[in-house]
């Protein structure tokens, strides 16, 4: 089958897609968007998290055909312009939250969503929001730091704008 949808603001299409193929496979292997990762393909690890119509989901558990005409945003589409980084991406680098980095794309999308919904999350809010994103390298402490840092920077940017 053919699937057409919007990926990171651009219309895309994939041909000869098998019915059982996942959105993750289609992104990675057919559309040249390998940023979303394939660590478990059972929805347990969150490495493949993408926005689907604005809600973060595990792209491994979305059938390719389900995204027909819908909007997908992956880690490759988080930064607003080509050169820059989203504050969440910058905070993950600055805080040392990236080691092997395999969990990072999923964590970035999930954190981005959290801070959109709740700009100043409590530690428990952060832990709840990121509880579906496994990381094996960091022990999560630097990830907590990164989310707090991104939150602080976004809030201070926002207050500068409002002043």
């Amino acid at each position: 089958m053919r699937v057409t949808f919007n990926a990171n603001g651009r219309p895309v299409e994939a041909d000869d897609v098998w019915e059982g193929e996942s959105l993750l496979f289609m992104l990675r292997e057919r559309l040249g968007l390998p940023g979303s990762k394939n660590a478990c393909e059972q929805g347990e690890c969150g490495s493949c998290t993408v926005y689907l119509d604005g809600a973060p989901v595990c792209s491994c558990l979305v059938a390719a055909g389900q995204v027909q005409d819908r909007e997908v945003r992956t880690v490759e589409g988080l930064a607003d312009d080509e050169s820059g980084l989203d504050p969440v991406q910058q905070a993950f680098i600055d805080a040392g939250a990236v080691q092997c980095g395999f969990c990072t794309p999923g964590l970035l999308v999930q954190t981005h969503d959290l801070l959109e919904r709740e700009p100043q999350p409590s530690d428990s809010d952060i832990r709840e929001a990121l509880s579906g994103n496994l990381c094996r390298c960091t022990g999560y402490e630097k990830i907590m730091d990164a989310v707090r840092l991104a939150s602080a920077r976004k809030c201070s940017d926002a207050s500068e704008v409002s002043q």
Partner: protein
Amino acid sequence: MLPASLDEAVTALAASPAAVPVAGGTDLMGAVNAGLLRPMALIGLGRINELRGWQYQDGTAQLGAGLTHARMGRPDFAALMPALAEAARSAGPPQVRNAGTLGGNIVTADPAGDTLPVLAALEATVTLVGPEGGREVPVSHLLTGLDPMRGGELLGYVRVPLLHAPQVFLKATGRTGPSRAAASVALVLDPARRAVRCAVGAVAPVPLRPLEAEQWVSGCIDWDGDRAIDPAAAAAFGEYVAAACVPEPPQADPEGLEGGPAAAAVRLRRTVSVLARRALGRALK
């Protein structure tokens, strides 16, 4: 295939009976990725707006089968159906709850499906829609196979009574982060009928109702007063529920078999007993 209405979906299914309906996809794609399922065609239900919301109807809530777990976990939903909200909020990682649906939880009927014991305790009913129209079936009849889905039918709605009284869902797991229930308990108070209803999940293929234990404990509660209960009675209720829902352990395990069926049954009884006691304690607090 991406039908835009329930009727269109029923028509599509009639036209290609081998097609697999898919809503959130979280269970289906897990099975496909594990190599357990090779769908030849899918009917996507995600476009059917009428199934994605909920509304009041004569003292009940009519829930669309396409309601996501994330939606059910929100405060407005929790205020009316707290146990269902608690189950939805514990049913896996946030990303999965954003996609997985109530209808999918029921149709997949995984023994550890978190909403199932709540629906059983609430005595919810489901509306099945097929080429000949709709019919209402108690959720327990559907899950136990007493009244299974027929060919060409889709799950449209779930009807849940609004009891306006405390309800609790809790589960035992292997870690603090999201994980599969080893056992779960849903307990609801129905003050109008002076009844406690309880269901135990994940210990059997379908949620189990300990009817005698419910009846007994309903009689121990001062319904007109502060609804307090003697802690000893709460503990006894826990034991009663566990004995009713977990088969009696065999005498002993075969020699040398660590963690055999006898030990597992003793363990499960203990877990269910604690969960049921805590559930009751919280509902009556």
